[in-house]
């Protein structure tokens, strides 16, 4: 061996390598495969779920063609094909089929195909959907004169236009001037919206004023304890006010009635495929289109108009149709309010735990308890929220501030504020843990630098530690927000309703009504999917609403992330 140290080193290194072989386990490849596999599995599940929601959510509103299906037994059915599936027809039915069909089913192991048609016309048929087995079909056609009407009541109508009555001028099928029909429909819808505005907003305001007069009087009565002179005065004044308000109310009602009478002059008569007729006010039709005679552009027009309605209108037909604006609004307002409640509470708790409390057994116990709160089923928070916030706190508020409204509860029942606080309680562990971690990650040198300048502990926390920990705190808030926005179970107890008559924010003083119950996208999904008269009709809405909820959470998160990254750039920055 030459006296070359490098050479000596390599040989001895090689000798060591043979004496201590590195086996596969030590290199970690099998673990790597496991880790990668776990990741792939997780990604696939998430992507699959998202794809399902995206596909169904985006496809729902696209107008489909209408098939006219003639059955072997001579029945004729018109409807939108919704989906197709395998099923096993009963043996007695199979036995009665022609030999060729029977053989087909037998080679298919006893299975046949069937298609679900959305036939609409619930008022005439008593059902929206119908299964048709493929072997029962004789013929399928797509005639261009079939229309789909979306109505305010009874859902869709599928059929032909028989006649149109536009303020006395009657037109019959074949001679209907489509542009005049469309124009008259637009006018009728405009009037319909006016009526709604009058009935909902203006009459609502008058009613509210009458109610507040009544409550003011009741307050005087409670205070003076009966028919004292000031009570009599107040009663007189109230009566006078109520008379003028009632006059106002009658004026509004008359205006609405006039518009309604005008709308009643524009009607349309429809025939379904079986020949039965249905007369309808034009104003009660949301939109209509010839499903088999649409260009791609017109289809897209219908598609986007449906999305527009979904995002900006109120629900109808037991939430299975119309829009979800109140639910979007409720979810947004509640989540925002929750963040406003949880942020200071969680951050202050974490500050005390991490910066001020003496680190010892007690603090450890508190910390563990806080973490364990995350494991309490959310419905328990709902029960707590109802019992503590609504009944105890809210009940007390009612007794003290709103005695004139009793026995009707104001704050003493579920509402926006109590929901937000309940969810704040549910998400506060996330914020506390994230904040504590963020505080712990602030370098010691920075605190010492500040203290050495003669800053007090609070000045150091307020000027150095908190800004520096802010990105981490924001991360906690983002997690809390996502968790809170998707939570449904506790909300069912503390303020979410299937249909809220009023939004929690409106033009009537005090503008934000914390005590009002509200609608929520998560609950809307549950209600539409599982509580409506027709789960098949609600199914598309489930996906669209889910899509919307995800989009809303994503939007709120994205905003928070942008803010966080800006803070991070500002406060953490690159060192050296």
């Amino acid at each position, binding site marked *: 061996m030459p006296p070359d140290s490098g050479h000596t080193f390599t040989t001895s290194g090689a000798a060591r390598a043979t004496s201590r072989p590195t086996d596969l386990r030590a290199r970690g490849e099998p673990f790597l495969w496991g880790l990668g596999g776990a990741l792939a599995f997780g990604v696939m599940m998430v992507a699959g779920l998202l794809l399902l929601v995206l596909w169904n959510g985006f496809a729902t509103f696209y107008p489909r063609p209408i098939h006219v299906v003639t059955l072997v037994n001579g029945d004729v059915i018109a409807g939108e094909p919704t989906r197709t599936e395998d099923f096993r027809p009963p043996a007695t039915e199979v036995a009665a089929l022609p030999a060729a069909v029977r053989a087909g089913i037998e080679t298919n192991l006893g299975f046949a195909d069937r298609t679900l048609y959305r036939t609409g016309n619930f008022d005439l048929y008593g059902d929206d959907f119908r299964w048709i087995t493929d072997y029962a079909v004789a013929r399928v056609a797509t005639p261009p004169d079939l229309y789909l009407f979306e109505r305010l009541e009874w859902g869709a109508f599928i059929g032909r236009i028989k006649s149109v009555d536009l303020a006395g001028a009657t037109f019959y099928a074949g001679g209907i001037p489509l542009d005049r029909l469309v124009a008259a429909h637009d006018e009728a819808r405009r009037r319909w919206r006016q009526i709604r505005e009058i009935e909902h907003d203006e009459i609502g305001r008058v009613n509210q004023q009458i109610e507040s007069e009544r409550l003011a009087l009741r307050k005087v009565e409670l205070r003076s304890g009966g028919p004292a002179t000031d009570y009599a005065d107040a009663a007189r004044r109230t009566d006078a006010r109520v008379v003028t308000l009632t006059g106002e109310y009658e004026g509004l009602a008359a205006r609405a009635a006039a518009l309604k009478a005008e709308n009643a002059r524009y009607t349309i008569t429809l025939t379904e495929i079986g020949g039965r007729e249905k007369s309808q006010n034009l104003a009660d039709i949301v939109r209509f289109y010839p499903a088999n005679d649409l260009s791609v552009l017109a289809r897209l027009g219908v598609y986007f108009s449906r999305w527009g309605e979904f995002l900006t209108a109120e629900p109808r037909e037991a939430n299975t149709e119309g829009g979800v604006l109140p639910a979007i609004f409720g979810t947004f307002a509640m989540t925002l309010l929750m963040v406003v409640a949880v942020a200071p509470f969680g951050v202050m708790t974490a500050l005390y735990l991490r910066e001020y409390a003496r*680190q010892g057994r007690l603090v450890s116990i508190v910390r563990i308890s806080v973490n364990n709160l995350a494991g309490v089923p959310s419905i328990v928070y709902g029960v707590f929220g109802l019992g503590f916030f609504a009944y105890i706190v809210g009940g007390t508020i009612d007794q003290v501030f709103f005695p004139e409204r009793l026995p009707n509860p104001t704050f003493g029942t579920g509402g926006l504020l109590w929901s937000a606080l309940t969810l704040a309680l549910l998400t506060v562990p996330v914020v506390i843990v994230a904040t504590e971690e963020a505080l712990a990650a602030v*370098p010691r*040198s*920075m*605190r*010492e*630098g*500040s*203290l*050495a*300048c*003669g*800053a*007090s502990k609070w*000045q150091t926390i307020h*000027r*150095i530690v908190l*800004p*520096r920990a802010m990105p981490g705190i924001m991360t906690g808030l983002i997690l809390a927000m996502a968790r809170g926005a998707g939570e449904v179970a506790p909300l069912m107890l503390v303020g979410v309703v299937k249909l809220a008559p009023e939004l929690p924010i409106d033009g009537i003083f005090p503008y934000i009504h914390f005590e009002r119950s509200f609608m929520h996208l998560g609950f809307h999904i549950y209600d539409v999917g599982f509580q409506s008269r027709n789960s098949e009709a609600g199914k598309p809405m489930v996906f669209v609403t889910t899509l919307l909820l995800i989009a809303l959470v994503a939007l709120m998160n994205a905003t928070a992330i942008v803010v966080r990254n800006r803070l991070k750039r*500002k*406060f*953490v*920055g*690159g*060192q*050296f």
Partner: protein
Amino acid sequence: MATVARSIQPDESGTVYHVRAGAEGTVIDVDGFNLFYGKKQALFDITFSVPRGLVCALIGPSGCGKSTLLRCLNRMNDLIDDVTINGDMRIEGHDLYGPGVDVIALRKRMGMVFQKPNPFPMSIFENVVYPLRIDGVRDRNVLEETCERALKGAALWDEAKDRLKESALGLSGGQQQRLCIARAIAADPEVLLMDEPCSALDPIATSKIEELIDELKGRYTIIIVTHNMQQAARVSDNTAFMYLGRLIEFGETEILFTAPKVTKTLDYVTGRFG
């Protein structure tokens, strides 16, 4: 040449002192100071005095307690749980650890520069005027004057004057360290404590900071911890040599480096160990 302040103790159990004749009044007096981290004693019976307006260097091998001693002077060790002290430590005759001492007011009299630059995540301007901000100073003119004076004092003004609004985190390591010095002198303290201020710096930045220390001398009393013997010899008037938590030898730098009385000191300053 050297007068003996207290006593010469040639054995290694006590401290050997050589103090310059006629040194003006002292700012800091430490007498029989002990410090324990939990049960472990880190400082043993430290006794020395720092004359006003001079530079005092603390040297000694790693882990001998230099930082601990320095941090005692502005009570930074209060932040560490389980520290007990006894003995006497005074600034201008006032007991540092006496009852009812206003720690915050005390720290305002003692600027500190740390081993690693620790600028705050704010603009350069805000960094420098931080001590004033916490005192509630709002007057723009005062703040700007102070900023300029402190940055000039820390030899950073020329580099930073056009980017005062930019984040301090964008400065180089050496600039950051000078910024920290500017921050420490912005509050006009009496004493400047520096814990290895040049350990993260290149020779040019180091020499700048050494020049700075020379300039600051006289106005401030400076106590500097350093591992660099040349640096200690260059910048300091007095030097304290510590070993294993004890103050071995204390006195005029020139004497300590040329004619130490204790063999340990000689070994250390000549680089034979440490």
